[in-house]
């Protein structure tokens, strides 16, 4: 009875796991197939010998390294700004007492309730007036005001930053700014990791805003590059699959090596919020 139950449970878990893995497996397989093989029926499900040709076709069709670099620039600059603004903001809300603190924090919480959708049209008009169409700034700067990030950092500071530490540093004659950078920021490392991963993954995979803002091929991020291969009827299918693999693999490998941190970071809002 016990064994039967155990087997059933494992069977459920394993079949769901197979369903989750199958699309990834097929993506890797199709990266090594020719277009003809991809369109054959029944579908080819084993690795083929067309990887090199697909790679050549891909290089000829799109500028993958450029898109990779663009994604990296947008994502890392945005993540760095979010981490910086969130940590100083969260820290200030946690350790300083100042007039209006309570009201300002309520306003901050309120901003989390309002969906981005409400202002999307004026946001787009604003970006064009700023001359930020085809400019990474549109994807980096507006998103760097992150209410959740401040909320999250405040929680972390309240639980992990002893006020006595600040007092000691003040007696040593450190300025407030030095205290933050020398004493507090190192304590915040785990919080930086969670929030940084969350922001990095979200922006790396972001599509809609990039689609509206980046219209020229030289500015395409990875998501836009993939999308452009879908609409281009002449694109070789194997090359498109290989490009998808190239776009997905770096983050996927990072995830497999540090899955605990990724899962903690990406579900951070649920557990504390």
């Amino acid at each position, binding site marked *: 009875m016990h064994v039967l*139950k*155990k087997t059933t449970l*494992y069977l459920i*878990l394993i079949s*769901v796991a197979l369903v*989750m*893995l199958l*699309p990834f497996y*097929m*993506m890797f397989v*199709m990266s090594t197939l020719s277009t003809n093989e991809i*369109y*054959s*029926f*029944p*579908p080819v*499900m084993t690795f083929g010998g067309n990887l090199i040709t697909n790679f050549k076709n891909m290089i000829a069709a799109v500028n993958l390294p450029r898109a990779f670099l663009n994604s990296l620039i947008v994502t890392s600059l945005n993540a760095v700004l979010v981490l910086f*603004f969130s940590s*100083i*903001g969260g820290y*200030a*809300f946690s350790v*300083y007492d*100042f007039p209006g603190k309570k009201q*300002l924090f309520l306003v*901050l919480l309120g901003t989390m*309730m*309002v*969906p*981005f*959708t*409400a*202002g*999307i*049209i004026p*946001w*787009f008009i604003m970006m064009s007036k700023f001359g930020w169409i085809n400019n990474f700034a549109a994807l980096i700067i*507006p998103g760097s*005001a992150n209410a959740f990030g*401040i909320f999250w950092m405040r929680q972390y500071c309240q639980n992990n930053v002893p006020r006595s530490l600040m007092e000691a540093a003040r007696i040593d004659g450190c300025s407030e700014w030095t205290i933050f950078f020398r004493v507090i920021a190192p304590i915040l490392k785990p919080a930086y990791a969670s929030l940084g991963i969350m922001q990095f*993954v979200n922006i790396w*995979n972001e*599509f*809609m805003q990039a689609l*509206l803002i980046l219209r020229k091929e030289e500015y395409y991020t990875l*998501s836009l590059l993939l*999308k452009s*291969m*879908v609409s281009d009827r002449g694109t070789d299918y194997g090359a498109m*699959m290989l490009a*998808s693999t190239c*776009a997905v693999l770096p983050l*996927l490998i*990072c*995830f497999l090596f540090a*899955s*605990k941190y990724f899962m903690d970071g*990406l*579900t951070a809002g*649920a557990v504390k919020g």
Partner: protein
Amino acid sequence: MILLKVAGVMHAIKKNKVAYAYIAPFYILFIIFGLFPMVSGFALSFFRWDGLGSMNFLGLGNYINLFNDSLFWKALYNTLFIGIIAHIPILLGGLILAYILNSDLIRGQNLFKTIYFMPMVTSAVAITIIFQNLFGNNYGLINYIFGLFGKDPVNWLGGDGSFIKVAVIVMFAWKWIGWNMVIYLAGMQGIPQEIYEAAKIDGASHTRVVFNIVIPLLKPIILFTLIQSTIGMFNLFTEPFVLTGNNWGGGTNGGGLTLMMYLLNKAPQGGNAYGYASAIAYVMTFMIVCVAFILNKVMNRNEVKGGM
């Protein structure tokens, strides 16, 4: 009097300038890029504006036109249909998988968690490209598997367009089930083991444990995931857009047309009906806020009942 007040405020700012300086970036950026667009979007929804010429005040005109716009209703129907149906597998499936993984019979918890969570770190465009192939009519793996079970192939992305929604639901569920599962599992691990033990001694079945113990205790967490996936539902755009070959109309018969797609197509993507698009945005916002409010109410009311 006013001068005194101003002086007082100035003094407070001076005394606490470090704290204000630390929180200022958020509020400045939010006012420029969040609050201003939000307020002007509301104002814009009462005007007709092509983005260049003069603005004409229409009053409720945009909203009235919206009410008579069959494409808007189609987009609304599609969005709600996809969102509501897709919530069944991600809620129930997420809970069941988490409950199984929380059982002491199961080893390799982390391995399963990692596998289920993989879609969350993957580009939606790449995922959609793969699924577009798997859903292929004459060559796709899914129709092949259907054939193995003696079922006729389904023209997922073509035909009369009605199966596009099913394809999007499959992708939505595939993507979000792991996220829900990981969150529910974290919640379940926070429930003291003794509660399960006590229920077991009382002879409660697993179904009863889930419905009478686990779900009531996880209510705040379930509420959180519901609100997040509801927002995800209203913002649904990438998957149906790429799945139908970057089609702004949502594919055959608008089968995959969602509210977000319709909104973007009305203005930034060539439609140039900025006021009309703002009206759509505000209807969507209103619906998101309503759903969040109702969910909150429903969840909290049950909690009070359970407490008595």
